[in-house]
């Protein structure tokens, strides 16, 4: 039977959303696979998360260690090496922590490695077939991984439908005792918070991008609200920057930033060549524009002919009420 262990990152006592996505991913790997959640940390936060996860997972492994209070990838890797069976499939989110942890873990476990997986096509013998993107999302590839000696796989957050947090009634197993020493050559010092207003639109997966259709500076608030509801960042086309309604760092285009989001909400943007030159990586483009002939509709995936000033608040409401 395929054994899958899902590493669950958490923050402030609650598991990250990916915790709800793993079950769906595992179903696609092998519907018969066993799935165990793994959490590392220390103190009450860890206990609360582990307990919480029993609602979704039947098995939860808890590794508690004072040095793991902050998820230092080097220490987490050592802890997982000590606890997990060698031939297991380990799932890790493909985020800034997962990228720090997973490649080295695969070496230490002598397991196959597959990164940033967006879908699975199932197991054939010892071969697991997966789908991922290359070239900044321009193309997809099928990849096979030989899982005979296990596999470490990072999955792209948001790629699998979240399950409802039910009442799996699982149990927490404390494996802290199996962890050997955790000497580290890398020491966490501190988090330097991003300066307010210093938003990096190139790093956001979802952009609510506004153009001339916003009409007035006061209306930027409307886009801001939608972005907040979507967990997105507001970017814009050049006229908005020229009008000094938003700072230059928010501008998408050949004379601005080149962005590679997963979803690009083009709100009242006509879609000039210069602007679209800054949108790379084949994102899912949603275009809302009152002008049905706006060129943006040629390149968008979904088009909506509406006035953004009326449409955006309604969309914000609808998303909030979900």
């Amino acid at each position: 039977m395929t054994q899958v262990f899902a590493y669950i990152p958490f923050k402030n006592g609650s598991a990250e959303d990916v915790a709800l996505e793993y079950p769906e991913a595992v179903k696609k790997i092998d519907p018969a696979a066993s799935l165990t959640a793994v959490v590392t940390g220390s103190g009450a936060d860890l206990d609360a998360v582990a307990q919480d996860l029993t609602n979704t997972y039947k098995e939860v492994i808890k590794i508690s260690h004072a040095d793991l209070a902050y998820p230092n990838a080097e220490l987490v890797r050592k802890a997982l090496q000590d606890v997990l069976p060698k031939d297991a499939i380990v799932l890790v989110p493909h985020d800034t922590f997962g990228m720090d942890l997973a490649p080295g873990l695969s070496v230490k476990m002598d397991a196959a490695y597959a990164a940033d997986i967006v879908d699975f096509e199932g197991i054939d013998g010892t071969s697991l077939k997966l789908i991922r993107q290359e070239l900044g999302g321009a193309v997809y590839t099928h990849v096979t991984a030989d899982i005979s000696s296990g596999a470490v796989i990072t999955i792209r957050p948001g790629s699998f439908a979240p399950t409802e947090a039910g009442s799996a009634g699982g149990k927490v197993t404390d494996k802290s005792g199996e962890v050997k020493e955790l000497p580290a050559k890398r020491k966490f010092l501190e988090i330097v918070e991003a300066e307010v207003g210093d938003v990096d639109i190139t790093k956001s997966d979802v952009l609510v991008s506004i153009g001339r259709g916003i009409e007035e500076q006061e209306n930027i608030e409307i886009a801001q609200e939608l972005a907040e509801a979507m967990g997105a960042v507001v970017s814009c086309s050049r006229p908005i920057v020229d009008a000094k309604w938003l700072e230059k760092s928010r501008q998408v285009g050949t004379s601005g930033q080149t962005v590679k989001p997963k979803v690009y909400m083009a709100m009242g943007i006509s879609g000039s060549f210069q602007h679209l030159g800054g949108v790379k990586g084949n994102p899912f483009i949603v275009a809302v524009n009152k002008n049905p002939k706006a060129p943006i509709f040629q390149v968008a995936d979904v088009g909506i002919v509406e006035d953004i000033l009326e449409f955006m608040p309604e969309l914000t409401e609808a998303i909030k009420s979900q």
Partner: protein
Amino acid sequence: MSSIIGPASYSFFGVFPASVLSFILPVVGVGLFAYIMARRLAPLVRAAPDYRLDHIGRRIQKLIVIWLGQVKQPRYMLAGVLHIVIFFGFLILSIRSVSLVIIGFSDGFVLPGFGGLLGDVYNFLKDYAATFVLIACIIAGVRRGVFKPARYAVPEKYGKDHTAEAVFVLGIIATLMISESLFEASELAYALQQTGEAHFVAPFTLVWIFKLLLSGASFEFLQGLHIFSYFLHDVTFFFFLCFLPLGKHFHVITSIFNVFFMRLDKGKIKPVRHGITAEQLDDLESFGVKKLEDFTWKHMLDFYSCADCGRCSDHCPANAVGRPLSPRFISIKARDLMFKNYPLSGEIYKSKLLVEDIYTEDEIWSCTTCGACEEECPLAIEYIDKMVDLRRGMVDEGMVPQSLQKPLKALEKRGNPYGKMEKKRADWALDKEFAAACTIKDLAKDKADTLYFVDSITSYDDNLQEIARHTAVILQRAGVDFGILGKDEKDSGNEVLRFGEEMLYQDLKEQNTQAILASGVKQIVTADPHAYNALKNDYTGMPPVRHISQVVAQKITSGALALKPCLDPDKVYVYHDPCYLGRHNGVYEDPRQALDAIDGLTRVEMQKSRDRSFCCGGGGLMLFYEPEEETRMGVLRVNMAAEAGANVIVTACPFCLVNIQDAIKVAGKEGEMEAMDFTQLIARHLR
């Protein structure tokens, strides 16, 4: 009593001969001047070479028109007229000054040939010259000191105000005029009182007035005044001579050379180094201007010659929109650095990297190479070549903003700044409606008489592909047998060259040249002024190149093209001169003539038009650059068009169209104003 004693025979306190002083003064003055000039020439000797001794005939012609003729001066009417008065006054009085110096030790000296009628005419003229120069100095002094025109202001970041120097020099000139006139008036008044002999004096001149005022003065006073004014003039004259090379009045000496050695051909860029061919470029250790001594001697002479008049910056679009560039201070900062690094005495300092020392990277990237500054400069100072040389230096050092690195890399890989596939270069011709009406020959397969050179932006920008289709339709209707290079066409490289990436430009030029020569066409037409300029001025060995507006104008005249009456007679049209069509290539009238051939079309002119056209914001790589600026050039331009009462801005350049279309949106004039390309207007009105 005898007549008045001249300085050559006069003795101070009856013992010390004044002629000794009047001999020592010029010796010391000229000696000091020669020393200063030698020190000033030191950097020019170490500078990069520059070939400026070709086309002597044309150079003399420029000298006559620009230097002697002062043609650029009246572009600013009051300042220009004042300058012309002082300039000609100086020329006339220089003869008088020379003879005055000699009179100091040779009584009654007259320059050879000035003894007879010529001397009388000259004296008549010079008396008026001195008078008018004094009046001009007073007006100029009041203007600089009291009214303070805005263009002379020195922003804090560029240093201290220069008004004091300007007023001081006006004072010196005034002193020269007054002392010269007093010297003569005192003698005449003396003679009149003594002998009753009245010499003719030009009425209402300074001499005439002074003579009148002095008519009742004592002999002693007149004698004293005569000697005093002589030496006041002599001292002031030699002080002024030695003062000139210390500041902006150096132009009094250098202007004649600066104009003689000026750049003769517009639209061209200087080679990386004079005397080095394109094939030898790889052997050069360093490219462009990095340190002061990397400038050519002529460019250094430019710095010396800058009169700080501010006309360049007054017309600089980058300066107008608050970019960190003011051409005037490109010159002044470099001049001050030359003065600092090459002091009048002592050691010469080692120069540092200019973009860290006196310029900033943004300052040098801010220039759109529109050429407005050079057009305006009364001293024929060059800016574009310097900008390009400075950029070459930065490119060589790897100092290129990330925003420009992307398109440059794409140009290297794909031959266009957008990184689009070569094979899609001719996709504009695939538009269904267009393809049904017009087939385009690919010169890789077919032969044609004329090449239509499309260039990158028109080939790839969805909105601008219309220009290519309109151009093709016009050419077809005009009966021109034409084709395109398709995927073999590369970016013309006009901006690649001007952004300092010489080797990439050479590469693009090489590829285009081969493709064009292989196609065997007899002429080239383009609708992109940047391509037009590159092919016509930067490339060599090309068949004749014409802009589409020239073709249209000619075909209308010959009757090959006929235009319908205006389809929108209620609209008011204005033509915006693209820099690379107008200023750099002198094509002003053809597009206007074509527009005027549309019956019933109302056309107005903007105040800034033809050679004073205001740049739309720049083309080519400038579209990728992220300048710091307060507003956009295009917005200012759109407002100028609105002021002129126009609601349709017609331009003849794809970059102008992009910039002005955007600017109309930014200026909030959507619906009120529109921009269209020349080819669109003509294509719509084809009969």
